[in-house]
């Protein structure tokens, strides 16, 4: 069972260079999940105790109630609020299509990261990388570049 999960996680570029041991460790906190189109599986303000690695389909990240700020597709990580107090979601996540994902249990991961800081750094690096990319995209989007002249 965990065997299959390891292979599925390994297939995603974000985790493809993780060592066998770390991958096994990570998979111990993981399970497969599915969402139907239209399903809101993360709600703003609720306890953030999980993260999702999208395997298939499209997830809309809804920031101010209605507008989709960004979508997440195969290979994207959704949610890193489980890493930081007060462990609350900052957005809604809505399945725009049928979605398959790997759910990572936040409490389980936190415990493993804290007891094994080297493993913790490997995991934190990957979440940080996603956060960094999201920030870059947000910066470009905030410039609203298509509005004005091309120069």
């Amino acid at each position, binding site marked *: 069972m965990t065997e299959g999960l390891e292979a599925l996680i390994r297939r995603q570029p974000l985790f493809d260079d993780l060592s066998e041991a770390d991958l096994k460790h990570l998979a111990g906190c993981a399970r497969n999940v599915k969402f139907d189109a239209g399903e809101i599986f993360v709600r703003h303000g609720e306890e953030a105790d999980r993260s999702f690695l999208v395997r298939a389909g499209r997830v809309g990240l809804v920031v101010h109630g209605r*507008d*989709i700020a960004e*979508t997440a597709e195969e290979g994207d990580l959704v949610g890193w609020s489980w890493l930081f107090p007060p462990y609350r979601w900052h957005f809604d996540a809505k399945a725009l299509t049928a979605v398959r994902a790997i759910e990572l249990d936040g409490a389980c991961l936190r415990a493993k990261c804290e007891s094994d800081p080297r493993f913790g750094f490997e995991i934190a690096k990957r979440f940080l990388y996603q956060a960094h990319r999201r920030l870059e*995209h947000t910066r*470009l*989007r905030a410039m609203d*570049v*298509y509005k004005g*002249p091309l*120069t």
Partner: protein
Amino acid sequence: MNDPWVPTPMTVREVVRETADTVTLTLDTSASPFAFAPGQFNMVYLFGQGEVPISISGHADRPDELVHTIRGVGPVTRPMLDLVPGDVLGIRGPFGTAWPVEEARGTDVIVVAGGIGLAPLRPMIYHLLANRRDYARIVLIYGARQPDQMLFVDELHHWRGRFDLTVEVTVDQGTEDWFGPVGVVTRSLARARFDADDATVVTCGPEVMMRFVVHEAVRMGVPQDRIWASMERNMKCAIGLCGHCQWGPDFVCKQGPVYRWDHIAHRFAEKEL
């Protein structure tokens, strides 16, 4: 080319409304075939209003017509939105440098367009598709502000349906009825599958967008001398005489608008991304 100072009158044959502020005009050149290379532009003169540089957005293999896609932003371009078949425009051109259709042969070609920037790239896409076997993968990434601001929607659907082309369309702002990706073009570029060390990247769109695109392409491993971008500067003569379009040591109307990135990268070096 005729006398480069004198506009040739050409009759509008067809008008297609692309978005609320953008039209595509097809001018009849059947009496005097019009040749150009993908990436070049014309000076388009609206009698009584003025003259503006506009890229050619049609097929280079169709000398019997000349196609321009124009976004109405000011005193010259806005009245162009109201043109109807039978109206006449004055045309000087073609001017400027072209997309690297030859240099790109044998490589993966990644076309990254933003907003109205798809118009200057469309002749390049037509060329790639008309000569499909000369290129390896072809990836088109197109970003717009919102779904209703995308150009050439029917054509995008058609291209997306082809088996020999990857098309990724993304918007900065999603709407209720949009189920496609929401995010900036660089996100789509980072996800695209191609051989970075054997790819050609061509990009056109807002300058900030292009800088981010180049940054991402380089990060993915595309050498700077395999990246081309089209720059915009105000123009008057378009033949390298008046200096209106000066950019560093260049006149964009002559040395541009299409530049290989390694030739201009230093001009952006001081600007932080």
